[in-house]
């Protein structure tokens, strides 16, 4: 990989060295957008402009008088998607999110991601809200697009610390109370839950018209645990310990995890939600690019 390519990829460990989360978000998003100009896929914009012949009943405010002066015909200018998308970020701050095998923790990475998404939305003047949860909802910021709300939002994200256990299903049930208006719901979590139960919990939100995006963050060692000797593993949430053989971790564990991920993906698809698996050693801009490309493909 050339040095230019390395500079373009914002490694999580590099971003963790930046003290200001807003700076992290801006670095990630601006750099990423600069990169997009070079891309043949011109992707993220909900604005789409067209001219249409005026028909009776149309609002005369939208008639383009410049065109009428040139052609003596009345056309009106229309914007598609001109309504703002409400983005609600749901950040899991349970103890399992605080796990790290050496680089940044899942929670730290989740904070980077949340800040980047918030910055991206604010750049388009979309209202952004935040819910921090673990076993229950710990913080709630309603979606707003007021000037200065981004800084306060990022400040809130920055102050999030890991809590105790997770109760994803219960939290999703209570999210409905806070998500009255339709919008994009971005869930950032490691999703250690029963896929079926989660599916049931997410379903009401989907039915309510929310566009649900599940960002599943996992540490590289969770994806590929490699030990050469037997180890005693301690659950960071429950503090339960288990003696595990390296052969199990190399074989059966990965199979189970793979099945779990597949189930999650299927459960999400069943309710019209989408799941994106991100390893915490993946550069942030690459993760964002994947997300946006995914969104573009979907649209």
């Amino acid at each position, binding site marked *: 990989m050339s040095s230019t390519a390395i500079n373009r990829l914002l490694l999580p460990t590099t971003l963790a060295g930046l003290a200001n989360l807003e700076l992290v978000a801006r670095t990630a998003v601006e750099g990423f957008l600069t990169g997009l100009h070079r891309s043949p896929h011109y992707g993220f914009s909900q604005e789409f402009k067209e001219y249409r012949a005026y028909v009776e009943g149309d609002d005369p405010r939208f008639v383009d008088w410049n065109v009428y002066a040139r052609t003596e015909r009345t056309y009106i200018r229309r914007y598609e998607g001109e309504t703002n998308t409400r983005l609600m970020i749901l950040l899991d701050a349970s103890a*399992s999110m605080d*796990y790290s*095998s050496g680089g940044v923790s*899942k929670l730290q990475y989740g904070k980077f991601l949340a800040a980047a998404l918030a910055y991206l939305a604010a750049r388009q003047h979309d209202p952004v809200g935040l819910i921090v949860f673990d076993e229950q909802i710990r913080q709630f910021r309603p979606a707003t697009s007021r000037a200065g709300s981004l800084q306060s939002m990022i400040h809130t994200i920055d102050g999030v610390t890991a809590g105790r256990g997770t109760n994803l299903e219960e939290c999703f049930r209570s999210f409905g109370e806070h998500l009255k208006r339709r919008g994009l719901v971005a869930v950032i979590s*490691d999703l*250690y839950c029963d896929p079926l139960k989660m599916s049931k919990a997410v379903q009401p939100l989907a039915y309510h018209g929310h566009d649900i995006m599940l960002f599943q963050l*996992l*540490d590289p*060692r*969770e994806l590929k*645990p*490699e*030990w*050469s*000797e*037997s*180890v*005693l*593993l*301690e*659950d*960071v*949430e*429950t503090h*339960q*310990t*288990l*003696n*595990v*053989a*390296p*052969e*199990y*971790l190399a074989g*059966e*564990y990965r199979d*189970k*995890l793979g099945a*779990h991920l597949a189930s999650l993906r299927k459960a999400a698809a069943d309710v019209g939600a989408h799941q994106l698996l991100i390893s915490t050693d993946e550069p942030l801009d690459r993760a964002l690019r994947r997300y946006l490309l995914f969104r573009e493909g979907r649209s």
Partner: protein
Amino acid sequence: MFLAPAFLLGLLAIGVPIWLHRVARANPTQHPFASLMFVEASETQRTAKRTLRYWLLLSLRILLLIALVLAFAGPLLTERAIPGANANARLHAIVLDTSLSMQDGDRWQRALNEADSILKSLSSSDRVLVATAEGRRVSVVQSSTPASTAGTVRGTLRALKPGIERLDYGLAMSTADNWLGSPRPPVVLHLISDLQQSAAPLRFADLEPPARTQLMLHDVGNAAAENVFIQGAQLTTVDTRSLEVTVRGTAAKPQQRQVILAIDGKEYGRRTVDLPASAVATDSVETEGGDHLTPQLGSQATTTSSAKVLFSDLKLAAGSHRLEVSLDPADALPQDDHFYAVLEHADPKALLVAPDTRADDVSYFASAIGSLAAPTLSVEERAPETIGTGALTGYSLMVIADVGALTDIQAKRIKEYVAAGGSVLATLGTHTAIEPGPLLEGWRISEPEQSIAAVGEIATTHPVLREAGDWHSVRFFRHRAVQVTKDDKALITYENGTPLLIERTIGAGHMLVLTAPVEREWNDLAIHPLFVRFIAEAARYLVRGDASAASTTVGSVVLTGLTATGGGQIFDPRGERVLGLAQTAAADRLIPDQTGFYEIRGNDGVRWIAVNVDARESDLTPLPASFVQRWRAMQVRQAAATNVAAVAAATSSADEKPRSLGPAVLWLAALLLLAELLLANRYLAIRRETPK
């Protein structure tokens, strides 16, 4: 056996690593993990491998502890505890006779064949040692080695050759304890020899082999062997211009030989000699005319025959001459068909040194020496101060009337003359001090006593005093007590034990010292009839008029006369230097290993030494069967005694000299510690459980 058995309690410490390893295995390392949702408790399948690693480390640690404890306890290894020394194992010592007689005919080849057959008969648990016996030494050419390496031993045997020295079986047997080495298993000593009669020792008891040694005699000699050799050549006592050569033989039939005399490398003459059959020993004398005479019957006590050949009227210029006598044709043992001798043929001169040449004693000495018929000496008189310059080597004899009249420098010069082979007859005169100077270094001489004394003991076996006459009738009016060194020999003493005549050896020369001057105030020796005879015998002894005195045998010690101050060089018969550069100043002795003439070049000129093979080695007569039988019987008795000794040794280990294994065990512990460190470091690195 242990030096400090109490330290063995330290073996209890083995429990510590065992306990530590159990603890370590019960506690695998703990790591945090995000969720145990997909994790189940499981046992590793690498248990066997890990266990093996742990066992290796554990066993290393236990061994290390054991080695340390043993090192402190000091294990001792006794001869009985030496592994592999099974009861049937024997050390077969093959001793090859490499004396001159083994060069006769095919004896040496037969000896090698015999050694080979011995090697073939050995069992695999035996060991074998090869030694050669010749001259005054037994050389181990192949140290004790397993019988399985017989190929190497055969190679060693093939490289051996017989020498030219004489073997004495007594010497080989009496030194066997040393060259066999110790400790050693029971020994079978194979002596491969021609069992020559002349190799038997003077004392039969010297033939006894050492303890726990079985002697096997392998006779490779040939009872019918014939040999003719020159036993010696010397000037006749009657006429110093006639050389008498003795030829001996062991041939069963009469033999005829040409005896060739070469002087200084040129043939001088040849005579024919007829040797009778050796069944009866005879003597025949060749006459001056050169015609040989019929041998006359002689003594029948010996089985060799001998004949003498006379070369008379040798017309030789003054100086030393090399005589080589050889037999033609040569026989199967050609080395003894040559005889070498150095003849000092000169008109001998005597130098009379006296402070006062008109004194009585000077005239007595001059008259006595001048009247000698053999050797004929011309006398030259000089004062001590004149001997500081000019060579002294031209004089066969120096007579010093009073040693005390010499200065230290003069005395040192005379001492050097003696050390180089010169001869001195001296008296202690009135000038002699208490410490008489360098010539008589180490002596202490008291003041003269005015009392009548008489001669006590006389060494009548000494050549000078063989016909001593009646020394007891000589009257001594004055005498003085002399303390001599232990190397000096008192030949005549007074009744009170004080020495009167002393022989002193300095380097290659001799001195005879009379402790009383020949003066009428001291004694009446000068007017006694024995005086002239004594002077004649002393002069004959000191000047050594016979040629054979200047010949020696291979392997004997020869005094070279080279001194530390003078230095010099010795050339062997092939003309090669014998001495290295560092030895030239300190080689006062030489052991010749070749026959022929050795040339000694010193400050005082060139001397020759003739070296011959030992004539006893030429007598190929084998040992009588009765002698060999007695020898074998002796070793059977000895073997029986050995068995008793072996039983005693088995029951008591008091004589066993234990060896300490402590240092070896300590080294082992050090190696184990190193291995443990490496292994433990490797395993601990794995135990940190860093992911790959």
